[in-house]
């Protein structure tokens, strides 16, 4: 099961030196035919509701279009694999033979400059947008988008501790996000506690829940662990919906107090933020403050994770990911290791949740469904499990990508005026997760920074890292 998967996709293809057009056409025709068969019922007919009755309208053109696209793509893939097979058949003399002792890769060279660059852009983002858009109010959309992306970066980094470092596949991470959001919402609306008191409390409560839910699943691993965490996540959501006395049910909790600048509210009047600092009042001050707040929270998450990796507990997590049985036989307490991973991952989820509540001013159970967990997991998986920068890039691509698509006017010209890429966002998510597993199961950034170094740094190719039984 755990054979190194260096070239799983390449091995299955026949290495042919010449491009066999006939065979390629035949294969493309076959896949086109299957696609046609698949699309016949769902795509060719659409149900139209008219009063109480359903009617059908046919749109065979859609099936034919999809079939033609698959035919073309399949041909392209054949041409591509043929040319790659040709290149592999004639190896260059410089090609490295040993993967382990490869030179520091291109990624490592780039990352030296990329990380400070990304950080700089993130810090200067509101200023840049201010100058590009030419005004505070005009930049609102972009700052909001930045906040959204950073929230997902933070959630991704939090889940990365559980999935990427400890190798425990958690499908119910959104539960801790929900615990954090509801902690802040309830504590602030019932007891009037301020955000800065609630934030650590929300983290503690989420960590506590992480431990509670972590205890029963200690013995489980792999698929079963994933399914049980999924069940826990759904149970928490269903309880939030049905426990109306506490959570106000599906209607959610509204009018949650806004964030304050360390006690100074963002209001127009006396004693407000604008007046205290001698500025002209603008609602955007609060948004920019929220942006920097989530940026700091995300960076704290990253910093803590990076430091923990170098501590015994972080080493234990990674050992657990690689091989649980070996871990136990070396005397590592797997119970404590797993529980700390769950608790710390959940704590950051809780921080992010309480930030979510303070930003929205409204929480409802619908924000915390399984899909949200799947999106966060997709970010971690696509980022390359365990890679911090990869998670950040994946969050930008997955969350920011659809927003950018929405603003491209030429797409509207191609697909018609009613085209909304957001409709297709999740469709592409699903396809992306599958494609990622098939082509790059290690994620965008598949290389692991070794946590222990003997004398010199060496790159470890992702394909040589055995993924654990966790």
């Amino acid at each position: 099961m755990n054979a190194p998967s260096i070239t799983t996709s390449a091995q299955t293809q026949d290495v042919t030196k010449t491009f066999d057009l006939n065979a390629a056409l035949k294969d493309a025709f076959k896949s086109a035919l299957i696609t046609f068969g698949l699309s016949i019922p769902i795509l060719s007919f659409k149900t139209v509701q008219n009063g109480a009755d359903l009617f059908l309208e046919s749109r065979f053109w859609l099936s034919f279009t999809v079939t033609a696209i698959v035919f073309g793509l399949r041909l392209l893939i054949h041409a591509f694999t043929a040319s790659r097979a040709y290149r592999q058949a004639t190896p260059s003399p410089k090609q490295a033979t040993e993967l382990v002792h490869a030179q520091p890769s291109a990624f490592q060279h780039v990352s030296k400059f990329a990380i400070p660059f990304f950080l700089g852009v993130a810090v200067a983002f509101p200023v840049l947008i201010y100058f590009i858009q030419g005004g505070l109010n005009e930049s609102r959309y972009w700052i909001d988008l930045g906040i959204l992306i950073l929230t997902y970066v933070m959630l991704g980094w939090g889940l990365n501790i559980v999935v990427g470092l400890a190798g425990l596949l958690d499908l119910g991470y959104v539960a801790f996000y929900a615990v954090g959001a509801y902690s802040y919402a309830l504590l602030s609306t019932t007891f009037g506690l301020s955000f800065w008191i609630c934030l650590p409390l929300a983290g503690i409560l989420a960590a506590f829940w992480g431990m509670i839910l972590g205890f029963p699943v200690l013995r489980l691993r792999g698929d079963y662990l994933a399914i049980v965490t999924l069940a826990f996540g759904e149970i928490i959501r269903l309880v939030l919906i049905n426990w109306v006395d506490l959570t106000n049910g599906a209607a959610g909790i509204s009018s949650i107090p806004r964030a304050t600048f360390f006690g100074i509210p963002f209001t127009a009047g006396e004693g407000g933020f604008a007046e205290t600092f001698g500025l002209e009042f603008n609602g955007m001050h609060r948004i920019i403050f929220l942006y920097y707040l989530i940026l700091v929270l995300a960076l704290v998450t990253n910093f803590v994770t990076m430091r923990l990796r170098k501590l015994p507990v972080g080493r234990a997590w990674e050992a657990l990911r690689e091989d649980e049985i070996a871990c136990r036989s070396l005397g590592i307490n797997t119970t404590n290791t797993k529980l700390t991973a769950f608790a710390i991952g959940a704590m950051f989820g809780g921080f992010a949740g309480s930030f979510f509540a303070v930003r929205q001013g409204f929480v409802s159970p619908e924000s915390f469904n399984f899909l949200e967990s799947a999106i966060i997991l997709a970010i971690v998986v696509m980022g390359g499990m365990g890679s911090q920068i990869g998670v950040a890039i994946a969050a930008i691509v997955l969350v920011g990508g659809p927003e950018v698509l929405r603003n491209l006017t030429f797409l509207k010209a191609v697909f018609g005026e009613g085209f909304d890429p957001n409709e297709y966002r999740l469709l592409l998510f699903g396809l992306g997760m599958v494609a990622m597993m098939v082509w790059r199961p290690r994620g965008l950034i598949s290389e692991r920074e070794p946590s222990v170094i003997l004398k010199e740094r060496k790159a470890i190719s992702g394909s040589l890292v055995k993924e654990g039984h966790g």
Partner: protein
Amino acid sequence: MEIFVQQLINGLTLGSIYGLIAIGYTMVFGIIGMVNFAHGDVFMLSAFIALLFFIILTTWLGVSSVALALFIVLIIAMVLTSLWGWAIERVAYRPLRGSFRLAPLISAIGVSIFLSNFVQVAQGARNKPTPPMIRDVIVLFQGESGYNVAISYKQIIIMAVTAVLLSVFWYIVQKTSLGRAQRACEQDRKMAALLGINVDRTISLTFVIGASLAAVAGTMYLLYYGVVSFADGFVPGVKAFTAAVLGGIGSLPGAVLGGLIIGLIETFWSAYFSIEYKDVAAFSILAIVLIFMPSGILGRPEVEKV
């Protein structure tokens, strides 16, 4: 008493549907050891296929006999859903054999998200109601309070179709060469390959069988509830998976038994406790069974290989 008998009938009907879906989970888990997370959405897709072809048959082709239309719809749904099952295995799972352990599960989650959103984009997000296909009921007996205990023709059809198809597939798995190949792959895939069994083909056929049984379940679901939406795959899928685990994953009779138990628990829970928390009950059973009884009722205990 009357309510009890009525709920028993309803629970067994629901349980048959869960049992049919659960077989898909249990066979796939038995043979390649993965949780086919997308199976619930394959079930939802098949309900849509059944709905579309039912409308085509009754309104466009003018088939007036509901029984004939249902029979044709069942066959078409089984064939087309099998094709989907085969294609999903070929595209999303087969390239991952030998990849790391969680890869197939993540890929399956991707397929699940893709399928439900594909149906949403293609067919719209609203519930799709059908006019009731069969209305007649048989009154079994009347209680003293005037409460009629009835079994509807729908329920009889669902239970009968389930029973017939289960025995057919039971025969296939126990007596035919395909079934033998399947059980051989389940025990030791490498050894089976060495003995000349086409492992890839056997796994594909397992997915095809699972998908076609899901199509039966989908058609029955549509017949029973008369309404389907793109989001209907997730919860029945999880419940059917619970059934498979409860019965002992890898065991065919276990899946059916588990399905019936889950169906009964759900209906009795809704009738006597609270309808709001019925899904909580299902998810809790799933967690409890996986934690405390991972080999289920009829399953073999898993041996940990080092």
